[in-house]
């Protein structure tokens, strides 16, 4: 069964209060008060002066198992929200593969599901490994820079921070086994082509995410009560409060403490939250947990994955 054999998240030590980026992104004093009071946002993690490839490398180098498995890594899948992040012909993924000695691997990037692309990459890695020789591994990378005001702020919703994550995936591992993956792609919620759908998107956001979460739990052969912990996307606190009401799931089993200290880390939220859960001893062997993500922008994707630790 596909499994996450190792996970490493790199969250930079630098923390910046949301007030510090207000001018850059056009955040008013009233919006800051709303963000702090209801959205649970406070500081964001930033890596000033650290290029994207170094951010990704910092996460990958946290995988202690990787050097020994290097020659068995057949696929490297980079998941990110932004389609274009560096000027041509730079390619941070190729730079990372060179630095890690992974030039032999088949390497590609997925951005189609925006911030939900991280879970997509895990699913893709599992599919690729299932059709490959025994003993192969895939490396999933994610990480992003807040390189424009547009990349740092979703009005009325969230503020982004910078971080990266790396996962070593196998088809036979036992560390964190993937039990199910569900996603719903809603192309009609495209904020460029159909901005008039924005209010419909807000209305359907929680019911659709709840539906996908229930589907993933059902396909894992479990009930919601069996889920020990939810590793959320760090969009904001109030979305999860309302989602938990809708699901009938206890809020204290959703790991939300990083919302106030990291901000929304694009695709890396669930992996950074996994690392926090492990550090806090919140996952015991045998515990089932759920990772959730939503990608929005060029269409919307709602995704959930159930794993067993």
């Amino acid at each position, binding site marked *: 069964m596909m499994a996450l054999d190792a996970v490493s998240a790199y969250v930079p030590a630098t923390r910046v209060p949301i007030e510090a980026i207000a001018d850059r992104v056009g955040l008013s004093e009233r919006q800051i008060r*709303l963000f702090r009071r209801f959205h649970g946002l406070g500081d964001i993690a930033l890596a000033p002066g650290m290029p994207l490839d170094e951010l990704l490398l910092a996460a990958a180098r946290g995988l202690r198992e990787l050097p020994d498995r290097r020659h068995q890594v057949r696929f490297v899948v980079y998941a990110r929200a932004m389609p274009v992040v560096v000027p041509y012909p730079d390619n941070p993924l190729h730079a990372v593969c060179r630095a890690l000695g992974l030039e032999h691997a088949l390497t590609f990037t997925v951005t189609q599901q925006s911030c939900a692309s991280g879970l997509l990459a895990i699913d893709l890695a599992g599919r690729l490994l299932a059709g490959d020789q025994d003993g192969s591994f895939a490396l999933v990378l994610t990480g992003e820079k807040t390189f424009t005001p547009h990349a740092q702020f979703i009005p009325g919703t969230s503020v982004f921070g910078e971080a990266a994550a790396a996962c070593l995936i196998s088809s036979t591992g036992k560390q964190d086994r993937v039990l199910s993956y569900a996603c719903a792609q809603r192309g009609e919620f495209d904020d460029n082509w159909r901005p008039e759908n924005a*209010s419909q998107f*807000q*209305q359907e956001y929680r019911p659709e995410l709840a539906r996908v979460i229930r589907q993933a739990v059902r396909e894992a052969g479990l009930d919601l009560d069996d889920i020990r912990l939810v590793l959320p996307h760090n969009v904001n606190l109030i979305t999860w409060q309302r989602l938990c009401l809708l699901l009938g799931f206890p809020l204290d089993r959703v790991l939300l403490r990083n919302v106030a200290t990291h901000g929304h880390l694009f695709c890396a939220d669930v992996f950074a939250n996994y690392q926090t859960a492990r550090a806090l001893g919140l996952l015991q062997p045998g515990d089932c947990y759920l990772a959730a993500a939503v990608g929005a922008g060029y269409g919307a994707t709602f995704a959930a994955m159930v794993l067993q630790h």
Partner: protein
Amino acid sequence: MESQHTTASETAIDPLFRQQVIDALCEVLQRILELDGQVTAPMHLREDLGLKSEPALEMLLDVEEQLGIQVDTEFLDVDEMRTVADLATFIASHYRAA
């Protein structure tokens, strides 16, 4: 005003405080939504006033600041509150002093 967090299941709602909340809600809604007519307690938040999620949070922030309270939002879904009076009842039973 209570200094402890209160819920409807723990204690009866103070009718005077609930009326204060209704007055504050009506005033804030009229201002935020830039309505000409007066807002009243039986009005439906969505159907009559067209209240959406983001202005709903602005409304809540203004009411909190006006009354010097913090509403317990863990169990609040403004989208599920039908009328101004419903929302006032929730607030009057799920708040603590700021």
